[in-house]
C-alpha cells in the first residue's frame, strides 16, 4: 500500500534521513521504533508532504506522493496524527473534530463516526465545548487521534500516540489501534513505547540515525537481543 | 557536604583584586574618551563636511538602533515607537540648551571650543533629555507587563503618535531672552517648543567628538549588559517568559528596565540629532516613519545582535546618503531591497549572534572554556 524507497531528508545542512526504505502492506500495522532523534517523525512528515525530500519512490497505492501538497495527500486517504498533537488551540474540541472531517461531505456518516469516536474516548465528549488549548496533555492526545480518525483514512500515520498518557489510556489507545486496524485501516505507528508497539504490530522497522537498522516481523524483532537491549530496557 | 559549592561560596573564592577592577572601570572610560577624540581630530580632519555629516547621522542612528535592540532584541518585546522617545530627548535637550543659551549668552549661537560652558550645558542637557525619555520609557514600559507582542507594539506606536500630536500643541518658540522673560504663563505652558512650526535655531554643538563618545558609551553599556546576568535574564524573557519567571527572573521589573534603558539612549540620540547643524526639530520626528527606520536597522542587523544593529545602522545611513542621486527611484529601490533582504537573509546580518561569533568561533570557545 505504501512503498517508500531510499528517502532522504535534510534540515538545512543537517541530513536527518540517509535513505530510508519501508513498505506497509494493506491491512497491516507497521511500527517504526528508534531512539530520540533517529528520524521517525521526519519520515512521517516526509510521507505526508510536509517536508521537502528526495527519494526513489514514495508511493501510496501506486501513486507517487512526492511533490504533492499535504492536503492532496490527505484526500488520497493518508491521515496523520502529528507529533506535538497539533490541535487547534483556539477552537473548541467539537470544532477540532469537525476539522478532521473537513474533506468529507457525507454529513450523516460523519455524525455516526463521531459517536464511535466518543465511545473510544468518553473524556472528549465531556469536554466538547472546551477550548482545546486548555485540555490536559493526555486529553489533547486523544483529540488528535480522534480527529485523524474522522478523516476516515485508509492509511493512518500515528506519531507517538502514547506520549504522556496515563498507563490506562495507553492501554486503551493500543486497543483502539488494534480495533481500527481490524476495521480495515492500515496503520504506520511511530512509538517510543517499543513493548506495546511491537506487541500490536505485524511488522517493524528499527531506525538508527536516519537509517533502517533492522526490519522484520514484529514478534521476531521483539525477541532479538539487540532490540531488547537497546529499546526494551534489556530485560 | 555537597559536591557542588553554592554561588556565594564560589563568589568569595574568585573575588578579584579591588584595585584592578577599579582600574578596569577607569580604563574603559578613558578608552571611550580617547576613541572619541581620535575620531574627532584624526578622522574629522581627513573627511569633508558631507562625509562628516554622514558620520554624525550614522552615529546617531547607531545609538538609536543599538538602544532599540535592548527592547526588541534582548527582551523580545516589540516596540515600534522608538522615535517617540528620541523626540522627547531631542525636544527636552534642545529646549534646555536653547533657552539657557539665550539666558546666559544672550544668543542661541553655539560657543566655540570643544570644552566650553556651552558644550558642558549641552552634555548635561543631553543627559537630562535621556532621563526625560527614560521617564517616558517607564510609562510606556508599564503596559508591557500586561500586553504581549503585537499589542505592545501597537501601544508603543500609539505612544509615538501621541507625542507627535502633543508636540504640535506646544507654544510658539520665543526668540530672545527678553521675550522669554516677558512671556505670560499662557505662552510658557505648554512649553514654547515651536509647535507645528518646528523648533529651530538650536545651538549646533553636536560634533564628531560628542557623537563618537556617546556611541562608545552606548556600545559599552549594551555589550556589558548583554554579557551580564541581568542581560541574560532579559534574553531569557525573549526566549520564554514562563520559564524565565520560574527560574526567578523578575520579568516585570526587567521589561520596564529594558524600556527605560532603551529610551534613555534614544533620548540621548535625539539630543545629538537636535544639536546638529541644519536640524529643525519637527513633531513628525516622533512619528512612526522614523520609528520604522530604526526598527529596520535592528532587524537588518539581526535581533539581539549589538554589532549587527550598529553595522546595519551605518550601512543604512551610508546607503541612503549615496542613493540621494537616484531621486524618486531611490525609495522604490530601497523598498525592493528591503523585501529581498528579508526573503533571502531572514536572520539579518548576523542572526542573534555578534559579528565575531559569526566570523570565527574563536571568542566563543574562549568564553566557554573559562
Amino acid at each position: 500500500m505504501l512503498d517508500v524507497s531510499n528517502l532522504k531528508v535534510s534540515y538545512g545542512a543537517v541530513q536527518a534521513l540517509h535513505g530510508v526504505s519501508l513498505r506497509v502492506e494493506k491491512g497491516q500495522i507497521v511500527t517504526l521504533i528508534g531512539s530520540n532523534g533517529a528520524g521517525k517523525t521526519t519520515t512521517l512528515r516526509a510521507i505526508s508532504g510536509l517536508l521537502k525530500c528526495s527519494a526513489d519512490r514514495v508511493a501510496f497505492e501506486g501513486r507517487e506522493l512526492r511533490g504533492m501538497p499535504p492536503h492532496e495527500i490527505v484526500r488520497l486517504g493518508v491521515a496523520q496524527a502529528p507529533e506535538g498533537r497539533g490541535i487547534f488551540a483556539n477552537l473548541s474540541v467539537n470544532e477540532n473534530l469537525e476539522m478532521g472531517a473537513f474533506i468529507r461531505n457525507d454529513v450523516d456518516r460523519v455524525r455516526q463516526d463521531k459517536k464511535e469516536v466518543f465511545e473510544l474516548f468518553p473524556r472528549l465528549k465531556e469536554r466538547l465545548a472546551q477550548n482545546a488549548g486548555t485540555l490536559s496533555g493526555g486529553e489533547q492526545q486523544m483529540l488528535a487521534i480522534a480527529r485523524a480518525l474522522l478523516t476516515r483514512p485508509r492509511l493512518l500515520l500515528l506519531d507517538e500516540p502514547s506520549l504522556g498518557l496515563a498507563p490506562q489510556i495507553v492501554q486503551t489507545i493500543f486497543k483502539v489501534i488494534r480495533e481500527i486496524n481490524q476495521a480495515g485501516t492500515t496503520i504506520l505507528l511511530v512509538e517510543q513505547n517499543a513493548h506495546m508497539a511491537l506487541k500490536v504490530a505485524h511488522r517493524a522497522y528499527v531506525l538508527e540515525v536516519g537509517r533502517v537498522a533492522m526490519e522484520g516481523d514484529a514478534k521476531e524483532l521483539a525477541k532479538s537481543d539487540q532490540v531488547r537491549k537497546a529499546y526494551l530496557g534489556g530485560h | 557536604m555537597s559536591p557542588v559549592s553554592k554561588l556565594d561560596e564560589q563568589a568569595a573564592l574568585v573575588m578579584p583584586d579591588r584595585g584592578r577592577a577599579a582600574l578596569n572601570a577607569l580604563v574603559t572610560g578613558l578608552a571611550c574618551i580617547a576613541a572619541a577624540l581620535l575620531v574627532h581630530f584624526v578622522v574629522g580632519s581627513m573627511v569633508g563636511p558631507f562625509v562628516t555629516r554622514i558620520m554624525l547621522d550614522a552615529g546617531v542612528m547607531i545609538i538609536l538602533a543599538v538602544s532599540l535592540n535592548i527592547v526588541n532584541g534582548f527582551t523580545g518585546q516589540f516596540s515600534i515607537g522608538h522615535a517617540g522617545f528620541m523626540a522627547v530627548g531631542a525636544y527636552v535637550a534642545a529646549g534646555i540648551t536653547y533657552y539657557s543659551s539665550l539666558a546666559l549668552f544672550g544668543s542661541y549661537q553655539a560657543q566655540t571650543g570643544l570644552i566650553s560652558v556651552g558644550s558642558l550645558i549641552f552634555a548635561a542637557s543631553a543627559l537630562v533629555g535621556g532621563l526625560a525619555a527614560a521617564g517616558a520609557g517607564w510609562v510606556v514600559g508599564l503596559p508591557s507587563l500586561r500586553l504581549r507582542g503585537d499589542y505592545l507594539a501597537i501601544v508603543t506606536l500609539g505612544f509615538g503618535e501621541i507625542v507627535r500630536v502633543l508636540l504640535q500643541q506646544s507654544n510658539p518658540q520665543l526668540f530672545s531672552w527678553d521675550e522669554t522673560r516677558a512671556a505670560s504663563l499662557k505662552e510658557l505652558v505648554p512649553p514654547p517648543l515651536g509647535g507645528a512650526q518646528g523648533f529651530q535655531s538650536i545651538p549646533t554643538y553636536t560634533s564628531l567628538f560628542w557623537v563618537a563618545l556617546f556611541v562608545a558609551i552606548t556600545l559599552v553599556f549594551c555589550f556589558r549588559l548583554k554579557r551580564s546576568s541581568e542581560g541574560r535574564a532579559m534574553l531569557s524573557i525573549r526566549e520564554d517568559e514562563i520559564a524565565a519567571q520560574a527560574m526567578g527572573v523578575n520579568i516585570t521589573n526587567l521589561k520596564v528596565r529594558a524600556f527605560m534603558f532603551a529610551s534613555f539612549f534614544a533620548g540621548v540620540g535625539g539630543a545629538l540629532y537636535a544639536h546638529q547643524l541644519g536640524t529643525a526639530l519637527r513633531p513628525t520626528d516622533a512619528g512612526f516613519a522614523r520609528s520604522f527606520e530604526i526598527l529596520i536597522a535592528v532587524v537588518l542587523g539581526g535581533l539581539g545582535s549589538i554589532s549587527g544593529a550598529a553595522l546595519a545602522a551605518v550601512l543604512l545611513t551610508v546607503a541612503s546618503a549615496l542613493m540621494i542621486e537616484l531621486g524618486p527611484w531611490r525609495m522604490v529601490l530601497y523598498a525592493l531591497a528591503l523585501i529581498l533582504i528579508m526573503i533571502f537573509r531572514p536572520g539579518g546580518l548576523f542572526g542573534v549572534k555578534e559579528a565575531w561569533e559569526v566570523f570565527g568561533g574563536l571568542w566563543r570557545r574562549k568564553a566557554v572554556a573559562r
Partner: protein
Amino acid sequence: MGDLLQTLITVISVGSLYALIALGYTMVYGILKFINFAHSDVVVIGAWTSFTTAAVLLPRLGVTPTEAPWWAAAGVLMLAMVVCGLVGFCVERFAYRPLRGAPRLNVLITAIGVSLFFQNFGQLKYEVLKPDGPGKPAMSLPFGAQPQGMPRLVGSRALNDATVSRGTLAGVDGAVVRLSEGVSLEERRQYSIRVTPAGAPRAIEAMVVAPAGRYEPGQDLRVGFMPAGAAPGSAYALVRSARVPIQLVDVAIVATAGLLMVLLQLLVYRTKFGMAMRAVSFNTTTASLMGVAVNRVISLTFVLGTSLAAAAGFLYSLKYVTLQQTAHQGWVLLGLKAFVAAVVGGIGNIQGAVLGGFLIAFVEQFGARYISSDLRDVYVFGVLILVLLLRPTGILGSTVREKV
C-alpha cells in the same frame, strides 16, 4: 441636537469605512499573525483605480462620469475590487509567501517594504495618456504625484433636502437670476437652485448666495454662478437644504459597506472555506493535514481583504472627492486608524473589526466636535491604549492563556 445628529451621521459613515479597512487588517492578522502595514496602500490603489476608471475610462466609453447611471458606479467598484484583489494576490505570493515561517518581525519589515514600494512607486510619473489637447492636463496613470478630484458618480445631494419652489427662469444675467415665483429665504439656511437647461440631461446646481429675506417674482436673486445653457425659460427648482442633511453618498457608503460585511460574515462562519480559514489561522501544518489547501486559503484571504480595501478606497474617494498622492499622510492616517480599530475590536476577530471601526469613528468625531479638534488623533490612540490596558487583546479578542 442638530449637531449631535450630524456628528452621529458622520460617525456611521466614517465608521463603515474604518470597518471595511479594518476587516482586511484583521483577516490577514488572523491567518498569518502579522500586521500588514501595506494594507492602507491597497486602499490607495483602490481609490486611484476607481479614479482612473471613472475619470479616464468612462468618458472614453461615452459615459459622462457625473451623469453615470448607478451600474457604472457599481462597475467602477467591481473593477477596483478586482484590481486590488490581484494586487493582494501578488503581494502575498511574491513578498509574504517566501517568508512563511520566518520570524514575525521580518514579515513586518517586509510589509513596511511593500508599503514603501507602493507609496513611492505611485509617485513616479506615468504619462500614459497624452494631453487631450491644449488646456487638458495629461492623465497620470495609475497614480501620480498630483492630487486629483474624483468625479461624482453619486450625486452630491442630501436625501432630506426640501424643494421650496419650482418654476421657470424669468431672466439670467451672469450670476443673477430672476425667478418666476416669489420665495422667502430663511436666515442661516442654505439654498440652491437646480436648473435644467434646454436639452441637458440633468439639472445643474448652483448655490444661492443672496441674503435671507423675501424675494418677489421678478426680483433679482444672486447665485454662486450660472452655467452656460441656463437661459430664460429653463425650468428650475429651488431647494432648501436640511439642517441635518443626510447625504446620498453617506447612504451609499453605509449600504455598500454593510452589504460587504454581511457577505463576509456569512462566508467566514457559514461555509467550509470559512472553517478552513479559521483552522489555518490556528495551525497551518495541522490544517494541511486535515486536507486544507493552505496556500489557496491564504491567497484567498488576502484577495478578500484587499478587495474590501478597494471598496473602502472607492467609497472614500466618493465621499471626500480629493485623491491625494500615494504617500500622503491622509492615507497613512486612514490606514492607521482603521488598524487601531481592528486592534481595539480584537484583532483577528471579524465582528471586532466592525465594532472597532465604529468605536474609533465615534471617539474621533465626538472628541473633535465636543472636546477639541486639536487632539483628535490623541483620542484615537488614547482609546487604543485604554482599551488594551483594560482588555489586553481588544474588546472581542479571545483571551487564551498559554497552558503551561
